[in-house]
């Protein structure tokens, strides 16, 4: 029992986190930055931070992840990191030749009070930024929020550093996809194209973190949103922000900065949330939903109807990031399943309220916790078992100890592939989720059913 040290008895904890269901802001900023074409994420802090973020992203995607660091030393921590950052900017543009450097802070540089806007100005004034190249930045102190906050802050940084309004609308629609997988970003673009809406999506990590084997090591991959396109996002007719937690700030900043009206939607995971996304796209683009997309929706409803008896009443423990959990909870309720435990490490009471709302009429008790951790989730499970866990790789300790099937979803997934290539957003993504859950339930049933009750056909 790997987690034999987890007691069943639950005591209120105030001073510590055990087995976190979150990590810190900078890695979110790094992931978002990788969704810009030719972007070098830069960590303004000690070199360990950058190494950890790159390693974690590499384990999750099985891809090389570029990233540079200001390599703080004791001196920099006393006298400020400006000299390090200026030197870093100079070196990065000279050697790696990125289109843009996306600087994020760390707890260290935040606390010593480095002023990023001022350092950025200085870099431009001193000619350290070649013509046509850019520096964007985000303040991402590790002791505030979570990795999701960091992602959101970097998206906001893209808007505030790059977006301009010329006063002439270009007819395009911005989509901020939220912290989803590269495969999901491809799916979101596909759905928009089917509906006939001309979108600019940023960030876009498709083609960056699920690239092909080319025989070449390139610091920067083919994919990512072009800087020029992000600049023009200020002229769009509207913004759809997917995920309140990861995308709303960026969309609202764009609204106040360039007068681009925005709508905040849930991540299009599951039937109802995808319906709302499709509807919003249709309305903002002034188009109609094509037959091909109707077909995909019909197929999803068909699969649910075919197999609904296997979903009925299944108790599920969910752990992950707020935007994903909100949509997943709604989807599971639609499937007549019972998401009885919902835990995110990201702090915020409004998350708890939202989950309560989504499950208010569902007829079962739901325990929900923001700023929670996996230790608490495990204790809940010890006190009342579930049929399925949905969460990241770290759930496998609980799954093994308690002998509960696990569907991997979220960040990080360190021990499987698939998330890079197959989306869980959109209608076909929902079918994939159904397939994964059914596989988990029915493999378990085939394993556990006594011989005399063993069935061939489900």
């Amino acid at each position, binding site marked *: 029992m790997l987690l034999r040290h987890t007691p069943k008895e639950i005591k209120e904890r105030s*001073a510590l986190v055990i087995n*976190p269901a979150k990590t810190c802001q900078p890695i979110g900023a790094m992931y978002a930055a990788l969704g810009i074409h030719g972007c070098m994420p830069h960590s303004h802090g000690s070199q360990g931070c950058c190494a950890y973020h790159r390693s974690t992203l590499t384990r999750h995607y099985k891809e090389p992840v570029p990233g540079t660091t200001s390599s703080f030393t004791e001196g920099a921590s006393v006298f400020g990191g400006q000299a390090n950052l200026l030197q870093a900017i100079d070196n990065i543009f000279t050697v790696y*030749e990125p289109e843009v450097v996306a600087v994020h802070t760390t707890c260290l540089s935040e606390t010593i009070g480095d002023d990023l806007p001022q350092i950025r100005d200085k870099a431009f004034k001193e000619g350290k930024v070649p013509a046509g190249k850019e520096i964007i930045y985000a303040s991402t102190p590790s002791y505030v929020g979570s990795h999701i906050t960091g992602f959101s802050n970097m998206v906001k940084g893209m808007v505030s550093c790059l977006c301009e309004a010329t006063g002439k609308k270009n007819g395009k629609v911005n989509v901020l996809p939220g912290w989803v997988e590269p495969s999901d970003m491809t799916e979101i673009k596909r759905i928009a194209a089917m509906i006939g809406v001309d979108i600019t999506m940023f960030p876009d990590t498709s083609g960056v973190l699920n690239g092909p084997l080319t*025989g070449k090591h390139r610091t920067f991959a083919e994919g990512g949103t072009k800087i020029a396109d992000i600049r023009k996002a200020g002229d769009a007719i509207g913004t759809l922000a997917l995920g309140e937690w990861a995308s709303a700030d960026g969309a609202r900043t764009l609204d106040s900065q360039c007068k681009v009206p925005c709508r905040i939607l849930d991540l299009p995971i599951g039937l109802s949330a995808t319906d709302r996304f499709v509807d919003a796209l249709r309305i903002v683009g002034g188009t109609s939903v094509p037959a091909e997309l109707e077909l995909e929706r019909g197929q999803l409803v068909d699969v649910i109807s075919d197999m609904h008896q296997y979903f009925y009443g299944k108790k599920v423990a969910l752990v992950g990031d707020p935007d994903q959990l909100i949509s997943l909870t709604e989807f599971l309720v639609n499937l007549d399943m019972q998401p009885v435990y919902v835990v995110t490490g990201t702090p915020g009471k409004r998350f708890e309220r939202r989950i309560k709302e989504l499950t208010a009429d569902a007829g079962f008790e739901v325990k929900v916790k923001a700023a929670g951790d996996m230790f608490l989730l495990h204790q809940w499970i010890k006190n009342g078992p579930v049929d399925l866990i949905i969460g990241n790789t770290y759930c496998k300790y609980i799954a093994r100890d308690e002998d509960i099937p696990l569907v991997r979803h979220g960040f990080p997934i360190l021990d499987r592939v698939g998330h890079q290539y197959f989306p869980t957003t959109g209608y076909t993504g929902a079918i994939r989720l159904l397939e994964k859950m059914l596989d988990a339930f029915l493999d378990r049933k085939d394993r556990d059913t006594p011989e005399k009750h063993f069935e061939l056909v489900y």
Partner: protein
Amino acid sequence: MAETSPLTVFEERQDQIHCTGDGPFEMACNRDSLAGAVSQRACVFCGSRVVLYPIADALHLVHGPIGCAAYTWDIRGSLSSGPELHRLSFSTDLRERDVIFGGEKKLAAALDELIDRHHPNAAFVYSTCIVGIIGDDLEAVCRTMTEKKGIPVIPVLSEGFKGNKRAGYLAACKAMNRLVGTGDVTDISPVSVNILGDFNLAGEIWIIRNYFERMGVQVVANITGDGRVADIRRAHGAALNVVQCSGATLDLAKMMREEHGVPFVRAAYLGIEDMADSLYRIADFFKGIDPGIVDRTRALVREEVSALLPRLAEMRRDLEGKKAAIYVGGAFKAFSLIKAFRHLGMTVAVVGSQTGTEEDYAELAQVTDPGTIIIDDANPLELSRFVKEKDVDVFVGGVKERPIAYKLGVGFCDHNHERKIALEGFEGMYNFAREVHASAMSPVWRFVPRREAQNRAAAKGGTAPADAGSDAPAPGEANIPNDKEAVA
């Protein structure tokens, strides 16, 4: 884009790269990474955490924001034969409030609760960058908790910005040294050792312990793989420290020599010669008080090697003439790997480390063939440039190097903390050969661009060779066309 400049090396880094046979040896190292480089290096905290974390019955509390704990949560497969407390992740999760008002109270409360619940035999409290800035007095909190709870509560002064991983090793050694000398040593044999610098990845320390036991040597403490607090407390009772890994625990060995008079020998468990040499060195040390030990050791080595060699020969048949690149954390591994590759009939074309010292690199220049590239603190651009230039077949490295190798269409062997099979000892040598064979000979490389031209040529000839990767250029023939291709 960066593709246009694969040959650019930071001017400041020229003296951290050396080519064996090119003029006199002179190399800079142990230098802070250049700001703005895509360094493969980590920080002080990382160094301390990896050294101490395998002590399985201790509490490991990370005092800092959540990231430092989250990124180090059980990412190394340091196995335990008993408690699994080290696999949990404990963090004070410092928030903005704590940064302003200080985190000492929170730390004390966390320790209070954790020690009461888990009854660890000791607690290590790691400080992180932010703790160094806000100035929490870890010493004071730990002293109070030690008195209150009756177990050693030890601060690990591992603020990330205070250097690189090596500084973290030293901080870890200082922390462990506080435990050494506090346990009862009465029943310890005069023929006894501590194993230092092995982290029991994939169960490796169990292999080594087994050899020692067969030699008649008592193992007092594992430091730190499958480690226990009580063993470390009485480690000073051992007659000898056997130190692997040039960086991680050498400082502790030196402290124990100074304070407790325990001598140490260096050891390496990777590869046939290094493994056998290490065992003989230990036998040699004890032969005065246990004359039979030399024969027992010889018998052990003979038995193991004679079982191993025929199995290796099978692998060598396929691997003969292939080339390897090595990029490891500590340089000691590089030495063993160079020898291990020779047993497979392979040459090492590129070798580098994150934390090598000047002596390490000088020695590497001695033992490598002319033309071998030696490199300190490499970045991905440099690594991929040399891998292509030397047309290597297998890259040996860690988590960040794996996808680079694969993108280039080169095989890979994880020799770092993410290895899943035991590579130490004689059976580890076989596992290593198998791992190299599995990757270097994989059919997947036939489908990658790097080999496509060669495949086409082979197809034209009518018969494709069974091993599509054997057509490497002759030694000394620089593979420039590949690079030009990359530029275009």
